[in-house]
């Protein structure tokens, strides 16, 4: 039997395969670009999800870090100023590090031994587990188990055997796994120990409340914030006297933060003044009632704005002071006028009218003081009503006319008495509402406003980012993780489908090549090459698109904060993942049908279509 010599059946060099492949792509440019387009969309979707998730995560972590000082201050202001609730104590004990300063504080307030506090902590931890279990239930289930009881109550009421039986009967039917070891024993023990440790908890609460009270007494008129802003050795001593343990580095952070808080308070206090609000509304072109803290902060965060604020406070103050002076003068005038007898007034008035008629000014002091009455809105209105004239048109002539008759004079005196009674109160009012002068230097105003504005923006952003930095699945929340997985699947399906289509379309070509003596390897190489190229192109475009979309979204949401927090390495990594997904999937998706077609007899392959 003769043997066929196969040594000359060569595999084409890769370069030639590449040429052929590019050739084919060029010919089917339109079809190829559709394939590339689908791949790029799929990859873009994945890339967008990855990039936004990474940027979100990074921004979240950054915001959390940047707001740490503020959180510390809030924590301490509450700790030093407000007696703790039982719930808060529970959370605190569960979270406290053994032997830390906070641990010692708790021990001191409760007068507890190490063991007692340890036990308390263990109870608190289990209690937290129990509360977490309740939290996972839906509202209906929850109310079936514990009714509308919250916190300690939701545990304490289980001390009744009957209720505990009930609880377990129902809870076993729910799909949520029971808390702790999931046994009745575990919960029984928790209830018992929780009840046993209640007195100790109460002792801590009482100790803390006493400490808060003592501190308040010591501070006198000063606020906790002011004390922290002072933040020197004396502060530490005062705190230590009441059992609060604060280390010096925390004190430094608190001092800076408290200073800012105080200064910011001073700036924000300007908003309480009507006139200032009006000025600010005017400057920014908003409604007076819409003026919010962020507005004044925005003005204050530029040097020009800060200077304007300072000036505006000064003029407003001066206006107010002048107004008070005017009111005081009117009060003096009233006392003077009221010294006149009822007959005196008509005389003054008639003389004044005569003077006016002669084309001169009223000569007597009293006449001029009487004319001053229309400076008070109420009186002006009443006179207007009496002479049947619009209050706006009321002039001194009308005052003199009214006062020139005896009956009118009596009426005027009544009016004056009313005014005399009112004015002192108004003066007092105005004095009280008088703006504090803004004593901060312009640079400080700018600094504080900027810091506060940033804090405002940050805290708003922190609520927008559902990711707390510690929670993790690669640092992503469940929701984001799911989105990423879904986009990955979408990407896989998209790329695979596009490639399958483009290969099955070309079975005829494969068959022809085989008829002409192509090796299976050639067919595989050329198809894998082509789809890899398409995958590469699609992947690159997709990465670009996805990054563009993701960045746009992040920039939209977080502005420069997103730029400052670009996780370049991670983004590069995502791009790598996307390119690999694009190319590898495209190649793999092409391998299978090409392999099937290559292995068939050529005419069989030609029949598939």
């Amino acid at each position, binding site marked *: 039997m003769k043997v066929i010599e196969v040594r*000359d059946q060569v595999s084409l060099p890769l370069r030639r395969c590449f040429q052929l492949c590019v050739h084919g792509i060029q010919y089917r440019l339109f079809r190829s670009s559709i394939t590339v387009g689908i791949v790029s969309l799929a990859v873009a979707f994945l890339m967008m999800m990855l990039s936004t998730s990474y940027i979100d995560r990074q921004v979240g972590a950054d915001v959390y870090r940047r707001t740490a000082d503020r959180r510390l201050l809030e924590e301490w202001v509450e700790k030093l100023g407000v007696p703790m609730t039982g719930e808060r104590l529970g959370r605190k004990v569960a979270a406290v590090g053994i032997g830390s300063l906070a641990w010692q504080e708790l021990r001191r307030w409760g007068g507890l031994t190490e063991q007692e506090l340890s036990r308390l902590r263990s109870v608190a931890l289990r209690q937290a587990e129990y509360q977490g279990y309740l939290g996972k239930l839906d509202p209906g289930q929850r109310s079936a188990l514990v009714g509308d009881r919250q916190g300690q109550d939701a545990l304490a009421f289980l001390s009744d055997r009957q209720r505990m039986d009930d609880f377990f009967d129902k809870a076993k039917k729910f799909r949520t796994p029971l808390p702790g070891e999931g046994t009745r024993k575990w919960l029984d023990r928790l209830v018992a120990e929780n009840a046993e440790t209640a007195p100790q908890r109460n002792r801590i609460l009482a100790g803390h409340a006493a400490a808060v009270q003592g501190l308040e007494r010591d501070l006198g008129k000063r606020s906790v914030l002011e004390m922290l802003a002072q933040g020197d050795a004396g502060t530490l001593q005062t705190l230590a006297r009441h059992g609060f343990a604060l280390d010096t580095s925390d004190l430094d952070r608190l001092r800076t933060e408290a200073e800012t808080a105080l200064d910011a308070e001073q700036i924000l206090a300007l908003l309480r003044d009507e006139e200032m609000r009006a000025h600010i509304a005017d400057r920014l072109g908003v409604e007076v009632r819409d003026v919010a803290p962020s507005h004044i902060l925005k003005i204050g965060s530029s040097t020009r704005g800060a200077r304007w604020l300072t000036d505006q406070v000064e003029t407003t103050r001066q206006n107010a002071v002048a107004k008070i002076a005017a009111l005081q003068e009117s009060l003096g005038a009233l006392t003077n006028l009221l010294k006149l007898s009822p007959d005196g007034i008509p005389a003054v008035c008639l003389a004044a009218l005569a003077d006016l008629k002669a084309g001169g000014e009223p000569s007597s002091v009293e006449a001029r003081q009487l004319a001053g009455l229309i400076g008070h809105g109420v009186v002006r209105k009443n006179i207007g009503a009496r002479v049947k004239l619009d209050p706006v048109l009321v002039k001194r002539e009308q005052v003199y006319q009214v006062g020139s008759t005896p009956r009118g004079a009596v009426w005027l005196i009544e009016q004056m008495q009313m005014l005399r009674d009112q004015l002192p109160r108004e003066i007092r009012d105005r004095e009280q509402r008088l703006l504090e002068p803004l004593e901060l230097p312009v640079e400080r105003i700018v600094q504080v406003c900027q810091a506060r504005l940033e804090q405002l923006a940050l805290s708003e952003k922190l609520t927008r980012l559902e990711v707390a930095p510690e929670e993790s699945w690669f640092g992503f929340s469940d929701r984001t993780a799911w989105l990423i997985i879904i986009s990955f699947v979408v990407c896989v399906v998209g790329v695979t489908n596009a490639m399958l289509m483009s290969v099955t379309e070309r079975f005829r070509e494969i068959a022809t090549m085989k008829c002409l003596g192509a090796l299976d390897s050639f067919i595989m190489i050329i198809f894998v090459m082509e789809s890899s190229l398409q995958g590469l192109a699609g992947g690159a475009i997709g990465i670009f698109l996805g990054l563009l979309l993701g960045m746009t979204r992040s920039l939209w949401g977080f502005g420069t904060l997103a730029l400052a927090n670009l996780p370049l390495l991670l983004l590069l990594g995502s791009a790598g993942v996307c390119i690999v997904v694009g190319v590898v999937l495209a190649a793999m998706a092409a391998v299978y049908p090409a392999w099937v077609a290559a292995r068939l007899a*050529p005419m069989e392959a030609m029949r598939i279509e």
Partner: protein
Amino acid sequence: MTVAPNNTTVGEVAEGAERPIIIRTLNLKKSYQMGKVVTHALRGITVEILRGEFLSVMGPSGSGKSTFFNMVGGLDSPTSGRVFIDEVDVAQLNAIELAFLRCRKIGYIFQTYNLVQYMTALENVTVPMAFAGVAGDDARQRGMDLLDLVGLKERWFHKPIEMSGGQQQRVAIARSMANNPQILLCDEPTGNLDLKTGAEIHAILKRLNVQRGVTVICATHDHRLIDMSDRIMWIRDGGIQRLARRDEVTVQAGAIGGEENE
């Protein structure tokens, strides 16, 4: 009309024992399963084709000519039966050996041309050369010569869609000769050509047959080709109806012995 009573006479018909057998088929059957319907395209063909022979295959449409060519050329696998080429059982060949066979031993002219759409005429002609390891200027030179042979030298840069059916067919013919095959399988090579061009192609085929000793197997309805043939095989309903030497057949206008309108 005389019908070859059975296939055993085939060997006797071929004259001259000095000519070795190049293709031999043994009870070749092919059926297509389409759902529940089975089409028997070939119902057992046993034939021996000699080296250097010019064999015409005739038969009505759907009689199984193309199917027979595919089997003989190793392009499809028979349902049963065997094909020997140079005494080698095609079914025993592995993928690379099959590729070798298709590439060098056999040239195909398909009824449907099967040109690669994105390649120019010249590129199409040089594809089989590339698979045989001939590339570059050598391949180009030979490709141009072949195109010249079929009268398409001036159109070497045209893509298939830019050419008429006849021109495409001529490119297919040029391609089939790319690697100087020993066997040419032509499925109606002149079906789309005018009389003059058809005649030219016939001349080319005959010249190859005579000068280079290429075995030409040609499906056709063209009487002029029958004139050039050494033997003629009639296929009907997937079986050999008649196999005769040229001198045994009288060509008449409208009908040849064993023709379909029998």
